[in-house]
């Protein structure tokens, strides 16, 4: 788990991603942003759910305002994690953005059916990738009114 220094108004983001390259790219993209967010990263599905439920080593973890979830992650994959979050009355109000390399229609449909808040395919091109991550930040952090912290 990594955390960054942030002003008190900033939002907490949970990044569930096993590829360190992608983690780095997303962090690089977000570093360029105007807002400083607290980004926590976990590398598999089980850790993600433990973090959200403040279990194990995550008892002090803050409740995130936004979850960026990859689908193809070890131990418990992103589809299951999404289903559990949306089935949990305490967690389901947290917006979940699926950020994945899968373009399969089945994944897209299934994600929305399990109430993903949006589905984004990782662009192959670096510039587009950075643009997409910035767009996510812009939309979910500055435009959207998020539910109040419990």
């Amino acid at each position, binding site marked *: 788990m990594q955390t960054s220094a942030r002003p008190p108004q900033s939002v907490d983001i949970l990044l569930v991603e096993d590829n360190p*390259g992608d983690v780095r790219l997303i962090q690089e993209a977000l570093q360029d942003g105007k807002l400083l967010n607290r980004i926590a990263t976990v590398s598999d599905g089980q850790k993600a759910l433990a973090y959200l439920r403040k279990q194990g080593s995550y008892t002090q973890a803050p409740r995130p305002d936004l979850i960026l979830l990859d689908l193809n992650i070890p131990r418990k994959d992103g589809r299951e994690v999404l289903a559990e979050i949306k089935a949990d009355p305490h967690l389901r109000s947290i917006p979940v953005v699926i950020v994945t390399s899968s373009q399969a229609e089945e994944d897209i449909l299934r994600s929305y059916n399990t109430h993903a808040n949006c589905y984004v395919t990782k662009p*192959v*091109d670096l510039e587009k990738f950075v643009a997409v991550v910035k767009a996510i930040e812009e939309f979910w952090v500055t435009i959207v009114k998020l539910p109040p912290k419990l």
Partner: protein
Amino acid sequence: MSMMATRAHEPGLRIKPIVGYGLALAILLATGIFQYKIIGALVETDNWIIHTHEVLAELEGVCSGLQQAEWGTRSYAATGVQDYVIQFSTGIGRADEHLRAARIVTAGNPSQQQNFDRLMQLVTAKRRVMEHLIALRRDQGHTAASEALSNDEGPKLMTDIRALTDEMEGKEKSLLEARQAASRSQAKRADLPILFGTVLALGLTLATSWIAHRDASRWRRAKEPVHNASLHSRSLIETSLDPLVTISRGGQIADVNQATEFVTGVARQQLIGSDFSAYFTEPEEARNVYEQVLARGSVRNHPLVIRDISGKHTDVLYNATVFKSEAGEVEGIFAAARDVTERKRAERALQESEDAFRTLAELVPQLVWVCTHDGLGIYFNQRWVDYTGLTLEESYGRGWYTAFHLDGKQPVLDIWNHTAAIGNTYRLESRLRSSDGHDRWFLTKGVPLTDGAGHVLRWFGTCTDIEDLKRSEEALRIITADLARSNAELEQFAYVASHDLQEPLRMVASFTQLLGQRYKGQLDADADEFIGFAVDGAHRMQALVNDLLSYSRVGARGIELAAVDFEQVLQMVLTNLHVTLEESDGQVTHDPLPTVMGDETQLLQVLQNLVANALKFHGSEPPRVHVSAQEIKGEWRFSVRDNGIGIEPQFAKRIFLVFQRLHSRVEYPGTGLGLAIAKKILERQGGRIWMESEAGKGSTFYFSLPKKGVTSADICKATTIC
């Protein structure tokens, strides 16, 4: 024959005419009596006519006598001459006389009698008037008489008398008319019965006479000498097609018919008196038969062979009986020989045909069988016996079914019953029980032999060993299934591989790009160039992996058939390609495009790949692309024509294969998968793709789609994933 017939007819001869004649006589008698009665009636009527005329005459006489008396009375009154008194007396006398006679003739008629009484009174009154006049003239003279005459009742009485007699006459006449009419109608009614009776009697008499005559002739004929009958028999004998011979006790031919001459080739004169056995191929056997006839009285259907003078043989069946004299002594035999050469020939031909069939049936590698119309086995060849281990006896009838009864199932019977019912060709693939326990697959086929009316006479059938064929089929089926599975696995592999390759590739591409961005100019020129190659390579590989993924997805994705409007599809293609269109200064025109059943997403990809290629491979001229479609033989044929660089004919097929490129990446970038993907999509939807081109003169790419849309079977064929 004649004796029997005669006895039967004798009683008829005696009874029938008597009855006939008696009946005729009775009818005549009845008719006579009837006629007599009619005549009697007629005579009576006639008597009545006479009677009426008598009555009329008497009444006339009365009137006439009274007129004479009147005339005498008036003349005496006028003249006083005594002669006129005599006239009066005579007239009165006549009147009285006729009056008496009239009384007699009208005695039987009460109404006339009444009139008559009245007539008597009037006549008496009249007479008194006249007598009074005469007395007056004689006693008192002319004047008194004239005076009395002028006012006496005489004329009135006379008028009354005349009226009464007229009435009586009328009555008689009408009575007569009624009687005459009755008599006439009676006579008329009598006409027909009399005529009928007479004719009947006449006919009966004639018929009886004829029967009597006929019976008499028969009787006579029967009694005539046999000579006449033998003339008749002779012609019958001569007409017979069978040789007929009478042979004397010594074995010499006594008589022959014409057929005997034909069959032996020997003339009648020579035949008669010769030894009968000389005309048979086996004279000894013929004599044996002869002896048998003499011993037993007859022989039936004994086969012998007649040889004619030229040596020709005739198969015959010999039938013979003895004939006896009046005294009952055997005089010889009467023999008939039935020519059975034709029958024998037919039998031989049938035998030969059957031999040929059996030879053939034994020769062929199949099991051969013959059944009756209801499935009873009547023939099986040796191979049947060898394979099934059933003996012929065990196979005959319904025994052969057991060879088909495996696992307690009876498909043979089910199909048999069905087939037999419709009289069609029997066909069944089944396992057949083998004597060695290694049951094999056989194809059993049966064809019916029918008569003219379509009734099945026989079933001819074969069982062909198809075990090897079955095994090959099974092997082929397994191989096909394996191939399909293998193809499916390959596509799955391609999908997974290309998908999983994307992740590391993205890392390589992203971080080399990041490296380039952050450190350009900070390292040396070589480093910048190397980074450039690495980024380019990563990008190309990404394109390849993407296209490969698309290619493998064509088969992995299910087909969603819907009406696809190609006008709309083309507009979407042009929207997707608008950057390329602007950059190349290209133009795309089109004819009216149809709506076709298909998978819209995939067909969009096909058209987009073709239009993109047409825009990409342009020469010095800006690209001009034309899309059109026409209906040909139940399918839609689309064409995408360009004015580009064209393709040499030898590459026309190669370009549709995976990764096949004709140009360097520097000239025309691309992965070499676009046409392969189009081809795969079209074949999956029952279509085809091909092209026509000439290097330097542009190309036309064609693709077709079935009008009715694709079926799931077509999809199976095209994808091998079923």
